[in-house]
């Protein structure tokens, strides 16, 4: 029997960055908000404090803060001719599953994606002609501009305590920052993090090769800070336990120490944990949704929460899954190329080199999540002519440590045996002497990379698993070759004792090992319902009181980490709902 609860104004599905931002903003606007989170309540005081938090086995190897694959996972294949199989253990990407979501265990890298992404098709067509874009590359303009998002990027950077150095203030190029970034109205709220030896050596080498290295912007407070909402941050202690962990010093910009406690202190807001939303309920007219169905994981009770508005704020993959399970919008068919839900799933690509310097001591145990130096010379700028290389998008190159821990971080020169006495000797000998240079590259949409519901496998509640079909295409392979050469040229210029060179990947993508929790697309944004699932305000074209918030709205993936635009779009959507939608509940963009 399903228990039907009293209607509320807003139900938020998933309480991480986007749910926290929207929940707080809409509760403050006077709306009654209920947030349903599948994971548990966790706090810095009880769960992320010393010494218990520094447990690599629990948090990195056993994924304590992540989605439980014994309950719900995805099936995976590289192309539609294969049979997809369930991912029984997390690997390549790690969706968070606690109050705070992936915003608890992220590293804090916060980028501003620019019009080079938002106008990707029109700009490449203008520059290189229509034929430059392969026929199966389903990239499209996003329907939003950098200028529209700029104030919201600024807002998110202030809330999340982002440390960095502006490279372009209102059109003036600033020394020390990223000269290729789009114009910013304001400096970062906090100065850059302290650099570490690996990033300094990389910066010097990149500079002498004519590149433009800069400190990576990261939501790791470089000093004590109070954000505009009054949330207090301690200074980053460079403890080395950043990604996969909650912050022991309240220094990492995370929803569970910012927007979520503020929302929870508002009587208009209620959080229910262990609440797994299984379906968004369509209204009888099909033009609206009327609420959600969910299961209380503590006792198995099934409940229905009616609501005037539904905001899907779960992890990007799970938002798309819910849309497919709820039958909202037309599912995408990669063969017929009809429908939109599930379209344009994208990931990221990359390559890296390990450099060994006999006699140097890098102290890899000491770093912030964002103590990297990065360069964008082959990324967000047109000075890099893609014409001769024949690929679209770009990649950033970076060096520095982030969470190099005793179990997982064991750099040894290539050719070292992988186990036994010789391996033990080598890992002790080289641990202190190694550093990495890595490239992180964009992935353009392809008609065959997509999501749908698996025909065979089901989750713990009996629902079809999400099926992911993904592989790298020629664009990524060409980019990888270019990136590997650039990385190796810089690495060789540093004259290491040994070099494990960067190699462009050519093998099909697999779910192991860990690669990047930057999954995008599936309910993409755009200018018309024929080619997108949501409009520029992340409002469903099909049901106007349903908003789908997260990286699932990105029509393609960039080289950058996605949280900057995810946070900015959440504030942008909050404003659209507060200022326009509440007064006139209707489509915010005519279809």
């Amino acid at each position, binding site marked *: 029997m399903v228990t039907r609860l009293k209607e509320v104004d807003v139900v938020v599905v998933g309480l991480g960055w986007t749910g926290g931002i929207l929940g707080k903003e809409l509760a403050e606007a006077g709306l009654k908000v209920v947030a349903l989170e599948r994971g548990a309540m966790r706090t*810095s*005081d009880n769960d*992320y404090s010393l010494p218990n938090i520094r447990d690599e086995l629990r948090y990195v190897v056993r994924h304590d803060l992540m989605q439980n694959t014994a309950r719900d996972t995805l099936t995976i294949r590289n192309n539609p001719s294969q049979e997809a199989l369930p991912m029984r253990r997390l690997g390549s990407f790690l969706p968070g599953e606690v109050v705070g979501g992936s915003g608890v265990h992220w590293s804090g890298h916060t980028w501003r994606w620019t019009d080079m992404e938002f106008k990707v098709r029109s700009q490449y067509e203008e520059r290189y002609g229509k034929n430059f874009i392969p026929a199966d590359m389903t990239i499209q303009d996003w329907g939003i501009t950098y200028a529209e998002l700029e104030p919201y990027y600024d807002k998110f950077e202030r809330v999340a305590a982002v440390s960095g150095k502006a490279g372009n203030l209102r059109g003036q190029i600033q020394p020390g920052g990223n000269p290729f970034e789009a114009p910013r109205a304001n400096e970062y709220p906090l100065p850059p993090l302290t650099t570490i030896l690996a990033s300094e050596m990389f910066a010097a080498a990149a500079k002498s090769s004519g590149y433009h290295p800069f400190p990576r912007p990261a939501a790791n407070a470089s*000093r*004590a800070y109070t954000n505009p909402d009054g949330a207090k941050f*301690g*200074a980053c*202690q460079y403890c080395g336990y950043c990604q996969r962990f909650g912050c022991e*010093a*309240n220094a990492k910009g995370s929803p569970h120490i910012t927007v979520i406690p503020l929302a929870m202190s508002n009587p208009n807001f209620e959080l229910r944990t262990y609440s797994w939303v299984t379906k968004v309920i369509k209204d009888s007219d099909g033009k609206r949704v009327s609420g959600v169905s969910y299961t209380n994981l503590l006792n198995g009770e099934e409940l229905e929460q009616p609501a005037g508005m539904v905001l899907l704020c779960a992890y990007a993959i799970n938002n798309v899954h819910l849309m497919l399970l709820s039958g909202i919008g037309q599912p995408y068919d990669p063969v017929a190329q009809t429908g939109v839900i599930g379209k344009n799933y994208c990931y990221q690509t990359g390559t890296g080199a390990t450099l060994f310097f006999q006699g140097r001591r890098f102290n890899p145990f000491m770093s912030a999540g964002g103590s990297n130096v990065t360069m964008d010379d082959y990324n967000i700028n047109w000075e890099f002519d893609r014409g001769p290389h024949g690929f679209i998008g770009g990649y950033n190159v970076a060096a520095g440590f982030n969470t190099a821990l005793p179990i997982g971080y064991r750099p040894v020169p290539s050719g070292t045996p992988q186990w036994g006495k010789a391996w033990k000797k080598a890992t002790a000998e080289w641990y202190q002497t190694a550093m990495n240079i890595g490239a992180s590259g964009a992935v353009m949409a392809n008609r065959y990379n997509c999501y749908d519901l698996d025909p065979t496998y089901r989750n713990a509640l009996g629902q079809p698993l999400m099926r992911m079909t993904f592989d790298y295409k020629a664009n990524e392979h060409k980019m990888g070759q270019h990136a590997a050469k650039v990385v190796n040229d810089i690495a060789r210029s540093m004259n290491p004792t040994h070099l494990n060179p960067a190699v462009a990947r050519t093998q099909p993508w697999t779910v192991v090992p860990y690669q990047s929790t930057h999954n995008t697309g599936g309910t993409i944004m755009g200018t018309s319902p024929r080619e997108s699932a949501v409009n520029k305000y992340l409002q469903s074209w099909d049901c106007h009181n349903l908003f789908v918030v997260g990286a699932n709205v990105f029509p393609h993936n960039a080289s950058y980490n996605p949280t900057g635009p995810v946070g900015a779009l959440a504030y942008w959507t909050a404003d659209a709902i507060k200022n326009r939608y509440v007064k006139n509940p209707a489509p915010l963009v005519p279809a």
Partner: protein
Amino acid sequence: MTGLTLALALAIASTAAQAADPVRGETLYEECIACHSLRPGVHGIGPSLHDVFNRKAGELADYRYSPALKRSGIIWTVDTLDAFIADSQQFLPANRMPYAGMPEARDRADLIAYLQQVAK
């Protein structure tokens, strides 16, 4: 340390405390506030600093202290706090405070002067 130098050191410390600027100390407290509240019984990552002076270290029943702090026998005074804030791991190895320390003696004196005003 001889009795005379100890007396001298204490005299210097108390002079510093007298000259300290609690208003400036309030600003310096920003470094602590993300984890330490001043309200009784309200603990964050660190314990409340309400009524901290002359309290035995590790004695609040509702905060989970490190064994190192619990068995330290420290009484929190101007001097012990000064040494703890300067470099807590050197002063008390294996304590759990994730804080690199406040190196300037004047900063610490100002901060402690502020705490003396408000932590009661």
